């Protein structure tokens, strides 16, 4: 693992932005340009991304995966897979790419990065990671995380994640992300130093927390329903697809048995022998063709899975909105009640029940001085509250505006990607049919010559 010598002229400039993603900062830096992140199936080649952050084009590759053993936090030995991330900058003039950074990361570090992004960019639909454990398996695929096919598909998924982040107009400018790609040692400490875990609102993750929000933005409510539907339908589709794949595998493989039997039979046949023998060969070809076909389909399934996980990211943004709205409504409610109290004290009318009021009734009125003091405190609180409410309102509106901008961006990306995925599925099916026609035409010829 060699690092390319750092040419001072070519050194990448980190973006002059705060690592902590303030909505304001994000807004200012937002670029409307959409990066083209085309994904190659299975080849693992990185693709070009346009990236203002880097000030020049870069390529990101997750080029290798390696089994490692080490000691975990409990000082127990563990085996894990590490992934090599290579970053290259591309010269405009000659199109040559130069390796600028290369380091190894494991899945848990990716998770850490993503969790950080979720906290600091709650208004962004943060790209998801590939699945932690293999799901929607059909019988051939192993559910083992160490299985080479799984590791390979995960490698592609991780690369895709990085490309998504790097091509996001806001996320790409994040310093922690930059360091993830460039600073191997100490990165974890740097992330933790941001204190993002403390900033994280546990209520966002709490599944059972329901916010009695009176006036959520309708669009977010609809979006939440949409994301539920998306998740449900894609899960269903993936499950059925896995079963279909399993059955298709069976059909192809059983034909392979013909090959062996035909071959044995051909030994006793004089006229039919040749035809049988060669037909049998074609049956073998047919049977073995399914392996590649289904491997390609796995990549298609991964593309759908990404959007399955994106549904979760969408939901997270909706929840953040609900949370903010809830806090806003609570604050407004609190302010209103304080104002009411104040008014009552000032005018002497008691419309609302208060313990203090009760006790004064029972134990005697308070002095005018006491009352004055209380009014004063309340007035201060009210003033503070009004300020807070104003800023919360502003925050809320900013959030909605920014979030909705990103959601629109996401929708376009999703439509484009899913359409491409469906087209690529059709292409796969066409290829499978053509192979089938080829094999059976050959077999038919052999049979007819028997």
């Amino acid at each position, binding site marked *: 693992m060699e690092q390319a010598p750092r040419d001072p002229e070519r050194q990448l400039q980190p973006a002059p932005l705060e690592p902590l993603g303030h909505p304001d900062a994000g807004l200012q830096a937002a670029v409307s340009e959409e990066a083209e992140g085309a994904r190659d199936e299975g080849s693992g080649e990185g693709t070009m991304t346009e990236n203002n952050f880097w000030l020049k084009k870069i390529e990101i590759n997750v080029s290798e995966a390696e089994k490692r053993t080490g000691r975990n936090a409990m000082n127990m030995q563990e085996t894990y897979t590490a992934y090599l991330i290579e970053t290259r900058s591309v010269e405009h003039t000659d199109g040559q790419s130069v390796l600028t950074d290369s380091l190894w990361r494991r899945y848990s570090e990716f998770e850490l990065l993503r969790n950080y992004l979720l906290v600091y960019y709650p208004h962004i639909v943060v790209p998801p990671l590939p699945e932690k454990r293999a799901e929607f398996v059909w019988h051939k695929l192993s559910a083992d995380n160490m299985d080479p096919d799984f590791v390979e598909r995960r490698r592609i998924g991780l690369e895709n994640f990085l490309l998504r982040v790097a091509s996001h107009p806001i996320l790409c400018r994040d310093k922690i992300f930059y360091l993830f790609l460039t600073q191997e040692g100490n990165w974890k400490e740097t992330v933790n130093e941001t204190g993002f875990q403390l900033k994280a609102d546990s209520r966002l993750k709490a599944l059972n927390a329901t916010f009695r929000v009176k006036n959520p933005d309708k669009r977010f409510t609809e979006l939440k329903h*949409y994301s539920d*539907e*998306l998740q449900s*339908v*894609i899960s*269903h*589709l993936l499950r*059925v*697809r896995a079963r*279909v794949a399993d*059955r*298709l595998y*069976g*059909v192809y*493989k*059983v*034909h*392979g*048995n*013909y090959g*062996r*039997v*035909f*071959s*044995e*039979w*051909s*030994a*006793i*046949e*004089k*006229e*039919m*022998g*040749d*035809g049988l*023998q060669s*037909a*049998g060969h074609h049956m073998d070809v047919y*049977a073995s063709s399914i392996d590649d076909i289904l491997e390609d389909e796995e990549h298609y399934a991964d593309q759908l899975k990404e959007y399955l996980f994106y549904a979760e990211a969408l939901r997270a943004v909706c929840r953040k909105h609900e949370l903010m709205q809830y806090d806003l409504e609570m604050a407004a409610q609190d302010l209103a009640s304080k104002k009411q109290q104040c008014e009552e004290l000032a005018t002497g009318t008691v419309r609302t029940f208060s313990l203090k009021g009760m006790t004064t009734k029972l134990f005697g009125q308070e002095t005018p001085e006491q009352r004055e003091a209380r009014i004063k405190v309340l007035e201060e609180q009210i003033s503070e509250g009004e300020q807070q409410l104003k800023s919360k309102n502003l925050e809320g509106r900013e959030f909605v505006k920014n979030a909705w901008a990103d959601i629109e961006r996401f929708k376009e990306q999703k*439509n484009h990607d*899913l*359409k491409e995925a*469906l*087209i690529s*599925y*059709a292409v796969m*099916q*066409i290829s499978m*049919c*053509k192979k*089938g*026609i080829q094999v*059976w*035409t050959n*077999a*038919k010829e052999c*049979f*007819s010559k*028997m």
Partner: protein
Amino acid sequence: MEGERLASQARSSGLPAGGATAESPGVDAPLLGSSGSSALLQAEVLDLDEDEDDLEVFSKDASLMDMNSFSPMMPTSPLSMINQVKFEDEPDLKDLFITVDEPESHVTTIETFITYRIITKTSRGEFDSSEFEVRRRYQDFLWLKGKLEEAHPTLIIPPLPEKFIVKGMVERFNDDFIETRRKALQKFLNRIADHPTLTFNEDFKVFLTAQAWELSSHKKQGPGLLSRMGQTVRAVALSMRGVKSRPEEFMEMNNFIEIFSQKINLIDKISQRIYKEEREYSDEMKEYGPIHVLWSASEEDLVDSLRGVARCLDQCCKATEKRMSGLSEALLPAVHEYVLYSEMVMGVMKRRDQIQAELDSKVEALTYKKADTDLLIEEIGKLEDKVECANNALKADWERWKHNMQNDIKSAFTDMAEENIHYYEQCLATWESFLASQTDLHMEETSEDKPESH
């Protein structure tokens, strides 16, 4: 590949290589036992190239069998018999057409059984009419087969469908079973009709034309069950002996049929398993398309694409169903018939061995016991004739059977390949048209969005 080596050895030496193993092959997908063929039979199609030279028309008398004489045709000199047995079936002269249909259930106090309607159309003079309609049950078919075997022990009698399928049968007479049986019975009768010798068998004629009571009384003639059983016990003992002195060509025949039987059984299992897998694939596919339609309900911009995919998947599902029915109409019954046929042929070989053994034992008796030499010599003379007839009959029928087998197998597998090609062509067409519609739209959209990106 090992198979190739075996094949080339076999063809050069003329002997089958002994590489066939008896144990089940190590297949990737374990084979299941036959769960009852849901097979349909097609009308028999003879596909012969060669012209026959000596089609002998046999008179009625020849088909009246003397139970003790096993000669299948007019008993004259062995030479003329050799000539007589060399013939091919002539499709142009087919003058007997048989259909089996209309299964009907009959319930009596003792039993429930099914009868089938048999319609015979013929232009033959020896038939009183040109059309006959009778009803027969499976037992009657069994009787007919038995009679044919008795009359022609070394001819290859067509197989009957199995009495019952043990595995996978809930009730004795479900619709699939009956339909499969009906087609197999039709095939059975047509095979007999197309056989140059069996077609003139008297019992066959009675079977096709007699009314129920006539058939019952006809059945009662002939040796009883007991005598037939007695023969069987003796036959087993004899056949052991017959194997040792079996002539070379019959050794070859025997080796062939043993290996063939193994292989055709395997092919039968494989084919049944393919049908089962395709059925399960088709069942899953039925669910696959509709999910895309469901999804399209929540995606405004992807409605076309999703519905397009759904349509393709549904079409492919239909194409799979068609492929399956093709399999069950052509390949499965053809292969299964040859599974049963191979058993028949092995039976015929045994019977030939028995006949030979009878002769051999008499010859042996002659060399050891000096008593009754004259009688023995006379008996031996008759037996020698018998053996020669039997051998010639078998040889001729073997060639005919093998020829038919090759054609039938070839045609069945060619059909299967054709079905598969058709299936993939259909699927290809539907996906290509989807792709075309998507890329057209795509091009339209992209040119709308970014007019300056050229």
